[in-house]
Every structure is written in C-alpha cells, then in structure tokens.
C-alpha cells in the first residue's frame, strides 16, 4: 500500500483502457468507469450504478440509476457541470431496490459517500450497500450556466452541436458534430468555476474504491488508482476477465509525476484559499468546514 499526502492510499497505479471498442467509442478517456460498472453489473457485484445520465438540456447531466449496460452507455463521457449523483444514494436502495450500489463521482462526492457510511444521519440502511464507488479526478467543476457561457459565448458554438467537451493539456476543448475543434485557454475558464471547488483538498478521489482520470497517460488511456480492499478485489477480477489492457504507469508519458504535480498544486492553492478565508472580512472570517 502506497501512502501519499496528495495522491492518497493506493495498492496500485496503472495506465489502462477498456478492451471493448464499443465502450471506448463514447467514453471520455479509457472507458474505465463504464467498463468497470458493466463488468460489475454482469458479475452481480452491483445491481446498478448511479451515473450522470442525459438531462433536459444539452450537456446538462441528470443523476441516473443505471441498471443495464445500455443505460451505462447512455451516461458515458464527462459533463463538466454539476451532477448531484449522491442525491440518489438512498433512493437507489429504496425505489430502485438495489442491495449493491455502484456510484461514480468527483472526489467531493466520494467524501460525501464515505462520510455517509461513517455518519449515516439520513442514510438508513445505505452504508453496507455501497458496493463500488468509482472516483474521477477533478480539478474543478462548473455550474451549467458557466458551460453555456463558455461554449456558446466564448467558443461561439451551439451546445447541441457539441460531441465532446474536454479539459486537458492546459486547455478547454470543444468538439462539434461537423468536426470543428475550438480550444479556450484555461485562464478564460477559471472565473466560471464553481466557488466551492476552491476549498477542495482532493484531486484524485482519495476515498474511492478505484479512481481514474486522464491526466498522466496518453490520449485514449486513463490513469487508474486501485485503492480499497473492495477496489483491489474488483479490479483483479476485471483484469482476469480481460476487461482492460494495461501498461505500467512508469512506462507511459507524462506519467504519475504530472498527476503528483497537479494534485500538489491544487491542494496547496486551495489550502491557501482556506487560510485567506479565515481573515476574509474585517476581524471576521468565512467558515472552514474541515475539523
């Protein structure tokens, strides 16, 4: 078990991608999330998974309890705005009747899940039913209206024509149906970020069973941290079933060094923000949630 101040505890870290072409076709990166859930669903490790499904407007996610592979496929890809996936965590065990729940979420959503398991104030019978919590790396999130403004105003593109949004290599990328690619420098996107993200102290979902993101590996691949006992068990079963092609993280560029660098930058910057909040006013500060 590696214990790292910024990257959390993990039993292994690899570069990986799904061996299923159909999954990769609509996934954000290496299709890790969709592949893992599809495998877990087929093996009966989970009865369903809470994912960010399609919503009422283009690129506006709505949390969805996926109980079939088709539903998992419909939720592939990153929506860079808020999907309150945790809001379904109790409902999944009630109306949907799941005994083994999968959930994907940002690092803060993993924090909510683990706090909920340790302190289930309003989560009766939920703690023992979390079967697979997959975390996705996250530098920041956006309100939906920010995405509208970035894509429609700054990138001059209609949201309904967008086929993929991505943040990588220091840019915000907008891909369209007709093959156009618009890139915005991140200095434009920063001011549109969700403010709550600026006190966030986790980049790579340290509390997930398995966490994954694009940073560290080449296009079409993903960096994967296998963390908990549950995660380790499920990952090794999925590997044995041939779900993933992997490479040692040491053999890919840019590798784990970039992950460490970004995690350190994010957390250091946000610690400073928390510090600044404490003297925000005149003799008065803003709340620090961390005790």
């Amino acid at each position, binding site marked *: 078990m590696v214990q790292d101040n910024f990257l959390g505890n993990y039993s292994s870290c690899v570069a990986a991608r799904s061996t299923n072409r159909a999954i990769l076709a609509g996934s954000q990166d290496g299709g890790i999330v969709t592949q893992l859930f599809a495998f877990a669903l087929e093996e009966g490790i989970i009865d369903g998974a809470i994912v960010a499904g399609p919503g009422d407007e283009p690129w506006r996610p709505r949390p969805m309890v996926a109980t079939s592979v088709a539903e998992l496929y419909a939720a592939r890809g990153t929506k860079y705005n808020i999907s*309150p996936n945790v809001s*379904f965590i109790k409902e999944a065990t009630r109306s949907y009747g799941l005994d083994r729940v999968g959930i994907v*979420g940002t690092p803060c959503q993993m*924090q909510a899940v*683990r706090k909920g*398991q*340790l302190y*289930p104030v*309003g989560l009766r019978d939920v703690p023992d039913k979390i079967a697979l919590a997959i975390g996705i790396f996250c530098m920041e999130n956006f309100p939906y209206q920010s995405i509208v403004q970035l894509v429609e105003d700054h990138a001059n593109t209609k949201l309904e024509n967008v086929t993929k949004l991505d943040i990588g290599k220091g840019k915000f990328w907008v891909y369209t149906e007709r093959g156009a690619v618009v890139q915005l420098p991140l200095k434009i996107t920063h001011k549109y970020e969700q403010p709550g993200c600026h006190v966030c102290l986790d980049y790579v979902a340290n509390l997930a069973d398995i966490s994954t993101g694009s940073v560290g590996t080449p296009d079409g691949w993903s960096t994967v941290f296998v963390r*908990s006992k549950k995660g380790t068990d499920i990952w090794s079963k999925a590997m044995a079933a041939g779900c993933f092609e992997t490479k040692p993280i040491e053999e890919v560029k840019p590798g784990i060094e970039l992950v460490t660098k970004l995690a350190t930058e994010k957390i250091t910057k946000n610690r400073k923000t928390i510090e600044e909040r404490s003297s925000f006013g005149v003799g008065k500060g803003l709340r620090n949630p961390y005790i």
Partner: protein
Amino acid sequence: MSDKITAGHVHMSGCTGCEVAIADNYAGLLTLLDKYVDWVYDLTLADVRHIPEMDVALVEGSVCINDKISVEEIRQTREKSKIVVALGSCACYGNITRFCRGGQQNQPQHEAFLPIGDIIDVDVYLPGCGPSPQLIKNVCVAAYLLLKGSDDQKALAEAYLKPLMMLSKRGTEACFCDLMYDVIDQGLCIGCGACAAACPVRAITHEYGKPQGQRDLCIKCGACYNQCPRSWFSFDVVNQYESIMETIDAAMAP
C-alpha cells in the same frame, strides 16, 4: 460482565421510532447486549421504574416543559449518567415536536416542547428522523471503545465521536436554512447531493446542481446539514473509513 458499560433508553416526547431504530440492528442488537452493554433502563423493555445510574443514557424525544415528570426525568438523566446522548432529531433539535401547538388528547395543555439541550448539557448528538440503525451501532461501539478499549481504540473512538460531541455544543436548532447559512451562503456547496439524499421528507431538490429547500415541508431534523460534506468534515476520521468500518464490523461479529 464487569467489562460491559451500562446504558439505557430514556423516553421523552418522541414517537418511539428511535427505539425501533435501535431494535432494527436485529442480531447486532443482541451482540451489543451480549458483549458490550448492560441495558439497565428502558420503559418499553426493562422493568425498572426509576432512572438508575448509567454510563450512557440514550434520550429519545424532546422535553415537554409543561409536564413536571418529564422535566424531573431529564434532570435526573443528566445527574445519573456519565454520557448523555441525544438520540434522534427530536432530542437534538426538537424536530417535528417544534410544530406542536397542544390540544391533543389526553393532555391538551401539553403544548411546549424543547430539545433536551435547552434543559441539560448534552455530550453527544446522534441526529436523524429516525436515527439510522447503523449510526446507532457505530456510536454504541465507539462509546464502548472509549470507555473500555485499548489506548489505540480509545483514540480512534474519540476521533470518531468528536464531531458528534461538537454538534451537541453547536446548538439546538436545525433547518434546511442551516445549509444556506453555513454552506451555500459561505461559498462552500459543491452540489454533491448528500443533503437531498438525507432529507426524510424529500424537501430538497437540486436545480441546476444546487440544493433548493421547500421550507414549508422541512420538519427541522438536521439530517441535511449533518450529512453534508461541507458542514463539517474530518479528514482524520474519514481517511480511515475502511479501518473504522472493519473495526466496527469485527466488534459486531457474533
């Protein structure tokens, strides 16, 4: 036997849902009683009329200040218990009993109810309407380890209980508004959805990712605030979630 702690259930003005939540640990309750706890007082289950000395008193319900016996019993509970736990949202925050206006049979004059923390000092809050059987289990095991465990176990139990102890000092009011005052208005909300999941009356929805409360539906239970990862969050504890859950599971193995 001597290694067990003594505990009891003190029934103030609550619906017995909290007591049922204790029982909803099923076999776990038997393990608790078998290994860790002597259940010395409980109007529903034990034939003891007067509040005895005990290590831990789990108090369900708010205090009807128009009822002399209730007031006397909550005072005695404080005097005779080492640790007073406010069990459930009525004891912590008043919850649904805040809305009482009296007039009910057969004591129509009983109309004013206060959370126990407005009458006595409380050591630990265990909120929820009803409190979840799992939180009750976790707190019971932690309380046992705190009083009887090894040094390591004591430290772990203390860290685990700390936020719930802090809650008992924070106050006796709860509402959806707490999320506005302490989380949303403070620029801390990240739209995770935990508040909506926790609300027992589905008063919270997410509009464009952010929680909206239908405040007319809110029963003032405090579940949303306490479930929120941005109300209070202890990395010391939550980073150890796996080992804490394993410790509790091991303790609860029959």
